[in-house]
């Protein structure tokens, strides 16, 4: 496969979804807290059904979800309410969330929408109890510093978390989500990844977004010349983005090659599936032997192509299988991969004979209840027909490693209609102008390098840290930058590596410790043990008392006198060079509760006394 993406006509754009760290959800007053499922307070179930649009047509994506009538189960919590249950009209749009989105729009130089309208976007995969996701277009037309164009910024509600298949947890439903959509302006896998990184940086710069796995998701839109637009959902790791793009290009190129090969071979598809249940009555495959029905279809001229790899771990057969699974079947078998899975060569021969399949043909079978088999066959035939077109417009989901599987057709614009229960919000010029633009993290890093003398890696860590503002406040209060950085970053990282629960430590407590060090009450050597004590749930005073018990000047003088007297021979032998080793012994004894400078000063005096005494 060629890596010349320009020659292939690669066009890509991204959509980034990031959860906002607001006090309340977007359309109700519940907190935006993620819960453990064992804390759930109850459960209910519902059915969702697609509603017909004006034209009497179901949206194609919605219709596909409806192929199986599915029951969805939901877990409730003491942090969810009737709005998540779809049993109370939504509260007005959360202004805190809107301000965050407007701020990001301002950073990107976008035009705010004069009056924001909340829409209902049909989603009937169960992830929204209502059957739609509320979403509002907030601003349009911006540019990133790197040159990528931002088309739109939307404010949406987060979907419920899928626990498994049709089982959802309502804690996440309704958390505000910003959706940033770039134009299809990128032409290499690397450019896509860089743009995603840059948007991530802008989001983090606000200090108002949620952190951690799952709080940010990237959707990637990709097409190549003669291919088709494919949307890949839910890429969570930034580092995988370029790989996902490469593999999708690979897939589209392979599908176009298959298309050409099919044309060359004059391939075609039989119209009617054949019942071959009887052929497998004694089959070694349990699935086939026990199946109430097995249907087969002959794909003329497809031999070798159904089994051809189009992406690591994916074949044309995998694509057909994805389509068939929408009917509830577990998968399919095709003759490119048979005999295998307990199916013998003889059974394959019988199967081919039953469908009059020749060497150059491929036969696909599905096994399940009759209704599911018939539905799956329709889907397989549909997908096989698409092979003559090359690439289908699809929504796909990412698999581990960066390959993808089919999810549903690309949705059309017909899926949106107004959320009449939410008032429109006018964005006045005053409101937009009053929004403060935060410092971009890239600029923060430069400032830390220049003003605080931090090294590049440490400056980066500090700038991305949640403790960034506490760090800056400490410096403003007179703490030396290097010490503040150690307290808010390096030492915490070290302790964390050793297994300490550093997330339990309050920024405010760290500030207090820094003040004590600054005033000389606590030696800076005691910083690490004190922070460790804080991570164990101790108060700042307790932590200081344990890690650095108070030693008065008199006590210190007495300790030094004793140690110097005990080691007077050693001191006389080494002279002033003894200061270092003796200092170590004293510091160990006072356990960091006294500043090393003070110890050093008193110790030097004591040593010179010993040396001056004959």
């Amino acid at each position, binding site marked *: 496969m060629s890596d010349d993406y320009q020659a292939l006509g690669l066009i890509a754009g991204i959509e980034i979804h990031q959860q906002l760290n607001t006090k309340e959800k977007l359309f109700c007053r519940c907190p935006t807290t993620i819960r453990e499922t064992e804390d759930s307070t109850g459960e209910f*179930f519902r*059915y969702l*059904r697609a509603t*017909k649009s*004006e034209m009497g047509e179901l949206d194609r994506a919605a219709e596909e979800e409806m192929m199986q009538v599915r029951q969805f189960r939901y877990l409730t919590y003491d942090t969810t309410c009737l709005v998540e249950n*779809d*049993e109370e009209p939504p509260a007005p749009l959360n202004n805190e969330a809107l301000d965050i989105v407007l701020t990001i729009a301002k950073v990107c130089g976008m035009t705010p929408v*004069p009056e924001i309208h909340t829409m209902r976007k049909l989603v009937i995969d169960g992830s929204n109890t209502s059957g739609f996701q509320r979403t509002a277009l907030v601003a349009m037309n911006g540019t990133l510093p790197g040159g990528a164009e931002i088309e739109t910024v939307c404010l949406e509600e987060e979907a419920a978390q899928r626990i498994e298949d049709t089982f959802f947890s309502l804690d996440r439903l309704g958390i505000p989500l910003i959706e940033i959509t770039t134009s299809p302006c990128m032409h290499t896998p690397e450019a896509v990844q860089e743009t995603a990184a840059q948007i991530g940086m802008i989001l983090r710069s606000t200090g108002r977004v949620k952190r951690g796995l799952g709080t940010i998701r990237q959707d990637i839109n990709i097409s190549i010349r003669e291919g088709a637009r494919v949307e890949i959902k839910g890429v969570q790791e930034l580092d995988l983005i370029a790989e996902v793009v490469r593999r999708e290009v690979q897939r589209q190129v392979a599908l176009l090659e298959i298309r050409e090969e099919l044309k060359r071979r004059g391939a075609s598809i039989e119209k009617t599936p054949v019942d071959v249940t009887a052929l497998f009555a004694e089959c070694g495959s349990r699935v086939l032997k026990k199946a109430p029905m097995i249907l087969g279809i002959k794909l003329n001229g497809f031999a070798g192509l159904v089994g051809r790899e189009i992406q690591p771990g994916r074949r044309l057969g995998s694509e057909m299988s994805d389509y068939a699974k929408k009917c509830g079947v577990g998968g399919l078998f095709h003759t490119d991969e048979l005999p295998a899975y307990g199916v013998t060569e003889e059974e394959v021969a019988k199967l081919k004979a039953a469908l009059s399949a020749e060497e150059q043909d491929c036969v696909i079978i599905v096994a399940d209840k009759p209704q599911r088999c018939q539905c799956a066959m329709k889907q397989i035939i549909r997908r096989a027909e698409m092979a003559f077109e090359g690439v289908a417009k699809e929504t796909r989901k990412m698999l581990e490693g960066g390959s993808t599987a089919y999810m549903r057709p690309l949705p059309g614009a017909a899926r949106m209609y107004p959320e009449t229960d939410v008032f429109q919000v*006018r964005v006045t010029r005053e409101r937009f102008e009053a929004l403060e633009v935060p410092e971009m993290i890239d600029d923060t890093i430069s400032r830390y390098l220049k003003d605080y003398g931090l090294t590049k890696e440490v400056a980066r860590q500090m700038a991305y840290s949640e403790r960034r503002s506490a760090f800056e406040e400490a410096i403003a209060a007179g703490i030396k930058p290097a010490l503040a950085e150690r307290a808010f970053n390096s030492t915490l990282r070290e302790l964390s590596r050793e297994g300490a629960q550093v997330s339990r430590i309050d920024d405010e407590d760290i500030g207090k410790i820094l003040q004590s060090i600054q005033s000389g009450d606590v030696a800076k050597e005691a910083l690490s043990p004190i922070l460790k004590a804080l991570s164990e749930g101790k108060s700042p005073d307790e932590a200081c008392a344990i890690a650095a018990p108070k030693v008065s000047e008199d006590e210190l003088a007495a300790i030094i006198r004793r140690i110097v007297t005990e080691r007077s021979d050693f001191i006389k032998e080494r002279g002033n060079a003894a200061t270092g080793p003796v200092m170590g012994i004293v510091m160990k004894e006072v356990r960091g509760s006294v500043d090393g400078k003070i110890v050093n000063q008193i110790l030097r005096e004591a040593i010179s006394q010993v040396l001056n005494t004959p």
Partner: protein
Amino acid sequence: MNEKLETGDIVRCTLKGCTCEGTYIATREGMATVKLTSGYNIGVPQDALTKTGSSEMAEPQITEIRQKSDLPLISIVSTGGTIASKIDYRTGAVTSQFRASDILNAIPGLATIAQFRAVQLCNILSENMTPAIWQQLARAIHDEIKAGAQGIIVTHGTDTMAYSAAAVSFMLKTPVPVVFVGSQRSADRPSSDNVMNGMCAAGAALSTLGEVVVVMHGSTSDDFCAIHRGTRVRKMHTSRRDAFQTIGTETLGTVSYPALEVTLNSGAVRRGATELFLKEKLEEKCGIVWYYPGMSPDTLSAWNGYKGIILAGTGLGHSGTDFIARIKEMHAAGTVFVMTSQCLNGRVCDRVYDTGRDLLGAGVIEGEDMLPEVALVKLMWVLGNSKNPDEARELMKQDLAGEMTRRSRV
């Protein structure tokens, strides 16, 4: 923007910093709603729009659902609830639909269990319902039963559905099920309760039941609908699916979903047990007075000339003692007073405290365990159909349509 814009016009929208294309929808308070090609609506000042074309309106496709003539006939009498609705994704308008074919399209399962005839009585929000429409409704149901319907479904907004169900219960004696149904979540949404409620209502309308009932969600899940007697049911929540509750007695039964298995309690009146009979007269000059601490007796004067008043009293059935003299005067002038309780649950007893005894002395009738709104509707019907206040008072003490029980069961 110079020329007048019409819904559906293609417009270009010029804002500071960007332009975009979309479809014009409407203008409200100077802000025009534009639907962008992405499907999103935005509001922009109308003078930012320039018309660039007109959209071609595609003909809506109407799928006629073929009804099976060998299935039992159910009549759907519609009063304006949104059991079926259509969304125009172009404009976002949601419109209620009333033709049988629309309802069968919205709830495709219906056509497999019965054949339907649709009667559109009116198209109103249920808060605009009136006693006059109750009468038309009872008449329409009567006529449908007479014409051979084996069950009736009345689609109704939920706000005042319990009043209408109670009114029809008094006006109409029915040999077949008369099932009131509505939905708490609008029919446009995939999660609407309209389909399940509609299917369960049809299940109840085909069952062996023979009285006026309300069939609505029995829990927050899509598992079953409860069958409530029309004179014992009340909307007890503003928005929950299971807002309708039978108060003070058991529900009549359940309809499981999706199996539509109807289970009836022994107390439910059965199909054919009652002869069809309509008595639709109502005395509309009746009202409810909801007593509150410190309420002035003068407020009662506003009801002068009213033939009947339901008092929603405190606790066992009380008003302040300074109401007694005024009640006595109005009673003497011919107004019928019936006491119910704000507690909703439990029986009125004005024989425990002096105030109660004095209220009885002033002519107030104990409304037993009747719900205040049901007592109001009953009083309208009783006064409309009795020769004098004394006869009316007697009838108010009797159970006419399952609205009061003789015993308060534990």
